[in-house]
């Protein structure tokens, strides 16, 4: 229905106006419609990291695109927050300062939401309350082992065969 889609659209933009500057340390992003009629128009994202004048998101860097998509994903999540949120290597293209802002946001959101995340990144691992190590001592067979941060950093690069 048109009203519901429009309401969702507006709500996502409200969340984006908060989450994008939080993740980027500034800047702005919005969803825009490519046509008049919401029911058959497409939806595009415009995003400007702090200090940058680009219009299209296509010119953005790999890390900037990933962080922009993440701000959209978290905005969609906020529409109807589940009790937990699973993230699989969403921080892979981020440099350390973007990773730190990502971690700050996850810490804040984890007051109400349980986060289970896969990462190879030490900074992201350091904010975990619990670390689960997955190993493959035997070819093709997974096993679980509880690890601390030093073991986790060695484990993530253990030769699996």
């Amino acid at each position, binding site marked *: 229905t048109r009203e519901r889609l429009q309401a969702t659209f507006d709500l996502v933009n409200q969340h984006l106006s908060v989450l994008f500057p939080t993740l980027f340390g500034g800047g702005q992003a919005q969803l825009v419609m490519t046509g008049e009629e919401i029911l058959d128009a497409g939806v595009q994202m415009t995003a400007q990291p702090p200090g940058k004048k680009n219009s299209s998101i296509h010119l953005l860097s790999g890390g900037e695109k990933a962080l922009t*998509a993440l701000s959209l994903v978290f905005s969609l999540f906020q529409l109807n927050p589940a009790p*937990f949120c699973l993230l699989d290597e*969403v921080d892979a293209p981020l440099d350390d300062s973007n990773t730190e802002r990502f971690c700050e946001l*996850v810490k804040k959101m984890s007051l109400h939401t*349980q986060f*289970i995340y896969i990462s190879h990144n030490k900074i992201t691992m350091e904010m975990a309350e*619990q670390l689960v190590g997955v190993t493959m001592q035997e070819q093709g067979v997974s096993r679980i082992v509880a690890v601390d941060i030093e073991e986790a950093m060695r484990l993530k690069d253990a030769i699996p065969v």
Partner: protein
Amino acid sequence: MRLTQIKLAGFKTFVDPTTIHFPGQRVGVVGPNGCGKSNVIDAMRWVLGESSARQLRGESMQDVIFNGSGTRKPVGRASVELIFDNSLGKAAGQWSQYAEIAVKRVLHRNGESGYYINNLHVRRKDITDIFLGTGLGARAYAIIEQGMISRIIEARPEELRVFLEEAA
């Protein structure tokens, strides 16, 4: 509804019965390439009712059953069980009064399959109904798999609109 445990057996690389506990609010999963981390995510999607094999990186639903390795034969059955703490009574419907809710899914290589809540045989709809209003619906943004971020970046305007509609 906090997730407290996941139990896997015969699911992808988790051929041996395995239990993972989640006492914390922020749980990091770590390990080398191909060791099974994303398979845990697939297991959660699967037990919550995922009906598309492609979403689980397979070509058919049987692809989730452990199909052998250099040292092991294939097995005939995959099962995944999620255990939730429902002490706040947030679960919907007839399960709201249970302090703990165990959601389980089983698949046999011969095609036999089933869903269970607290060991009671139920339909897939009963699984998805529990999570009504909790944001864990089929295409909610609670599970962000490896590659989803780049799919959003590459999405054309028509595709991005579908993302929005699914969340509406």
